[in-house]
């Protein structure tokens, strides 16, 4: 909200510079966002918090200025003496259909006004606070709104049925063209001001075009009222509009300012547009009891950590318009002023005391230390996993949790399990993602467009799904690999090109599983482009080679992308442990013999098949069969592959001789050759 330095000075004497005033207001909770010097005045842009509607006026800010600078408010000219010339000229009536919608409604009628240009001082001041001048009558209603915080509306009386004002809910088929020229469809949750026939204004929001005050207006009906905050809010939301008036009604109006503002408006209209004040009507005003709060002296110490002398407490509260009566030696009864409907309990008073006393004067202390709760363990796993993935050369990404359903094609087909957003701003926000893969793959595509030669990324974040209206949100690990990373292995070996693929994903998850103490794991193909990961008999994750269709959608050309998702929270953590235990070192007492064996086999024979077959006869001397090499680079006939394994022979009783090992090894070779129709290379 904007107020000016000179305008404030009409209500309170200010002896400090605009800059120091801004500082004081900021430190009292009215944050001055900017000061602009213009036309010999200073415009303060102040951020008013939603709990303080009483600050939404020059007068309200001036009250605060008085409190923080230790000065008294200037006495204002009273318009109480202003009385209508004729009482009830034509039996004018105000009907309020539901008292809950409208706390009070007042009208003043001024006849024979001369609508014209506003005087310069008025135009200029409105301009400073950002308002455009319309005509003298409308400008005055706006001026008083800014000055006292009570929204007012002037109707052209001759454009409406002059005998009654009805405050009622709109009927469902009614409509109204508002002052901004928009045709508004009304409905029963919108409160309107109507005459006998039709709505003439949306209550508390905006007047109607048809009854606005123009150059031709002679007779003015001035409205000053208080409408229910919730009704105004719903109404203006329904209509998709907002106004200075609705902004204030939604936050609450001082009931005692209504009549003061109304009379002030009449006085100013008479002053600059002439006319005769002929009538004044007011709906019955409900009694509202003053809020009284018991303030205990030790509460200040308990909440703020400081002692504030009673006299200082009294000075602060009185300066803000509170009535303070001592009750006992260490407590008082505090009455809140009419404009402070936000003050309901002792804590509200403590805030006022702290605010004016000065937050900066409250010393700093540290609370005593607390014991940690045990739930933290889970997070530590996350940190360990993250550091490990970083160590494996993956860079951490953070992608959006919301996703376009289309992006899930090729990743997720359980439409029923999607958690959908009721009010997304765009399609990219229509669902919560059930998998991390699409977001990571999108990041891969983005980086490929930036000419990155390879993209190796991961994310640890939540995935979301639902079953039977119950929502699950569970942390997963997502990995996406794309492209060739070149690694150097010295001048002789040259470099090795590592084309990212399933075995890289497997290697990384093996590292993770080992780290988390999960030994029992298996990787199985489920179709050509998907590998399922099992640990302790449960499916704990999934690898995918993106299909051409998905790659096309992501605009990835001539590259393959491999992605993994590991169900961290759901499946992995329950199996995880990092318990360590020392096992006595087994030193082989007698040296063993190793025999390498390179086999050419049909491609579909797996390493696992070979290792299992070699171990099957249970040869006593054979202690281990290990994988040694996979000769992908050699010339191998199509449909075949070459694998080298190492057979370890060892005896616990003696040093083996070649003669002892040879027949055993031959038996094993024979088994492998026959079983797989392999050839020795």
């Amino acid at each position, binding site marked *: 909200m904007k107020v000016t330095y000179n305008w404030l000075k009409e209500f309170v004497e200010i002896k400090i510079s605009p800059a120091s005033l801004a500082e004081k207001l900021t430190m009292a909770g009215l944050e001055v966002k900017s000061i602009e010097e213009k036309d010999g005045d200073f415009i303060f842009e102040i951020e008013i918090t939603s709990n303080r509607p009483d600050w939404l006026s020059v007068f309200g800010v001036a009250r605060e200025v008085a409190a923080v600078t230790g000065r008294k408010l200037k006495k204002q000219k009273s318009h109480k003496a202003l009385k209508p010339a004729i009482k009830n000229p034509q039996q004018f009536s105000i009907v309020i259909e539901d008292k809950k919608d409208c706390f009070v409604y007042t009208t003043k009628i001024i006849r024979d006004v001369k609508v014209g240009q506003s005087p310069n001082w008025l135009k200029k001041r409105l301009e400073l606070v950002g308002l455009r001048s319309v005509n003298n009558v409308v400008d005055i209603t706006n001026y008083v709104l800014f000055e006292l915080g009570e929204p007012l509306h002037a109707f052209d009386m001759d454009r409406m049925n002059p005998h009654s004002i009805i405050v009622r809910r709109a009927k469902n088929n009614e409509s109204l063209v508002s002052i901004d020229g928009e045709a508004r469809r009304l409905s029963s949750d919108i409160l309107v001001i109507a005459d006998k026939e039709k709505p003439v204004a949306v209550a508390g929001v905006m007047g109607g075009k048809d009854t606005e005050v123009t150059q031709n207006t002679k007779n003015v009906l001035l409205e000053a009222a208080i409408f229910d905050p919730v009704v105004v809010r719903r109404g203006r939301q329904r209509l998709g509009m907002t106004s200075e008036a609705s902004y204030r009604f939604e936050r609450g109006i001082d009931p005692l300012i209504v009549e003061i503002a109304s009379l002030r408006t009449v006085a100013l209209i008479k002053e600059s547009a002439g006319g005769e004040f002929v009538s004044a009507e007011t709906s019955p005003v409900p009694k509202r009891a003053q809020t009284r709060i018991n303030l205990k002296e030790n509460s200040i110490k308990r909440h703020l*950590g400081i002692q504030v002398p009673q006299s200082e407490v009294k000075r602060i509260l009185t300066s803000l318009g509170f009535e303070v009566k001592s009750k006992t030696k260490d407590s008082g009864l505090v009455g809140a002023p009419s404009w402070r409907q936000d003050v309901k*309990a002792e804590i509200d008073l403590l805030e006022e005391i702290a605010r004016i006393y000065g*937050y900066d004067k409250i010393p700093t202390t*540290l609370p005593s230390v607390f014991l940690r*709760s045990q739930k933290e363990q889970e997070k530590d796993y996350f940190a360990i996993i993250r550091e490990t993935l970083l160590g494996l050369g993956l*860079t951490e*990404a953070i992608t959006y*949790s919301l996703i376009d359903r289309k992006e899930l094609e090729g990743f997720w087909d359980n439409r029923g399990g999607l958690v959908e957003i009721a009010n997304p701003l765009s399609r990219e926000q229509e669902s919560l993602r059930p998998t991390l893969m699409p977001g990571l793959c999108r990041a891969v595509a983005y980086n490929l467009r930036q000419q990155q030669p390879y993209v190796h990324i991961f994310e640890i974040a*939540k995935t979301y799904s639902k079953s039977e209206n119950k929502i699950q949100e569970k942390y997963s690990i997502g990995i996406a690999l794309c492209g060739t990373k070149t690694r150097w292995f010295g*001048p002789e070996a040259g470099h090795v090109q590592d084309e990212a693929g399933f075995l890289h994903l497997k290697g990384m998850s093996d590292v993770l599983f080992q780290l988390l103490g999960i030994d029992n794991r298996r990787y199985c193909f489920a179709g050509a482009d998907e590998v399922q990961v099992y640990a302790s008999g449960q499916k704990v994750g999934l690898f995918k080679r993106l299909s051409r269709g998905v790659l096309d959608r992501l605009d990835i050309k001539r590259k393959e992308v491999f992605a993994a998702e590991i169900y961290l929270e759901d499946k992995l953590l329950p199996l995880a442990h990092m318990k360590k235990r020392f096992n006595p070192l087994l030193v082989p007492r007698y040296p063993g013999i190793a025999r390498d064996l390179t086999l050419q086999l049909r491609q579909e024979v797996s390493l696992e098949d070979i290792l299992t077959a070699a171990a099957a006869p249970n040869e006593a001397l054979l202690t281990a069969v290990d994988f040694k090499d996979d000769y992908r680079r050699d010339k191998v006939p199509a449909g075949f592959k070459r694998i080298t394994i190492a057979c370890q022979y060892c005896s616990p009783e003696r040093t083996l001789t070649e003669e002892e090992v040879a027949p055993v090894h031959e038996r094993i070779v024979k088994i492998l050759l026959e079983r797989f129709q392999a050839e020795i290379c």
Partner: protein
Amino acid sequence: MDIEPIRQTLDSEIQPVKTLQELEALRVKYLGRKGTIAQLTGSIPALAPQDRGPFGRQVNDLKNRALSLFEEKQKQISAGPQEESRWSLDISLPGIAQELGHKHPLTQVIEEICGMFKRMGFSIVDGNEVETEYSNFTGLNIPLEHPSREAFDTFYISLPPTKEGKLLLRSQTSTVQIRAMKSQKPPLAVVAPGRVYRPDAVDASHSFMFHQIEGFIVDENITFSDLKGTLEFFAKGIFGQDIKMRFRPHFFPFTEPSAEVDISCIICRGKGCSVCGRKGWLEILGSGMIHPNVFKNVGYDAGKYTGFAFGMGVERIAMLKYGINDIRLFFENDLRFLKQF
């Protein structure tokens, strides 16, 4: 026989030796089984008895001298560069190691901030992102029909409401207050980082998803002084001991008294620049004493317990800390960006 010329020859021969092979050859020449010194020793019995003593001592001295020279030379050669490796390895080739990945800057900031609070004894807690109206609003003393709700515009979930109201994506991490306090009794000191969501149009300073860190502490005798002290310890730990701080009164429905916390601008040190909007101050977090209504909502005795809470935007702090000017960079995952951290 004169020892002196032999000593001089030894000295001059050992001096230019550069490799261990050359040194070994020389050692054999002097100290070998048939080397010079062995021959000298072998000649002793042929001398006159009165000459044997002095000559023997001279030979012994020479032997000791040779031993120490060889030892010294060997050390010298071993410590020096190996000539042959100089030409066989191009050391300007890239080194061989697994390149490290880069931790996302938001993770780094979250870890740093949570680390500060952990050292003060806070526990780190994780909260749900899909929440109820009760935990996001009502329980936090934010009435359904109130303008203060506007600041927390919210994504709703397309599912039937629960008995705690509609399901939504939390618009603030303060939801953790309600969850934690409902499940535990004081004393309580908790920090909860996480994602939050608001339907804001995306631009350089707005994102519909961002991160917050919520913290709170509840016990008997927790005061506004403690709030100030704790947050000062935190801010100085993150931004440096020489920053200035100010606590400004503000309004949050779930705290009272409430304070916004500013630090002196870390770019211009308070003089005023474009980053701080010429004000010299940067707002870094919101805080306040937990409102008695919140205690009432979670079943705590507001007459017995007090507490404070604070919340901060992680992106904002990361942007200030690293000088990042566009919030979208955090979620684009451009490796050229991520690899700077």
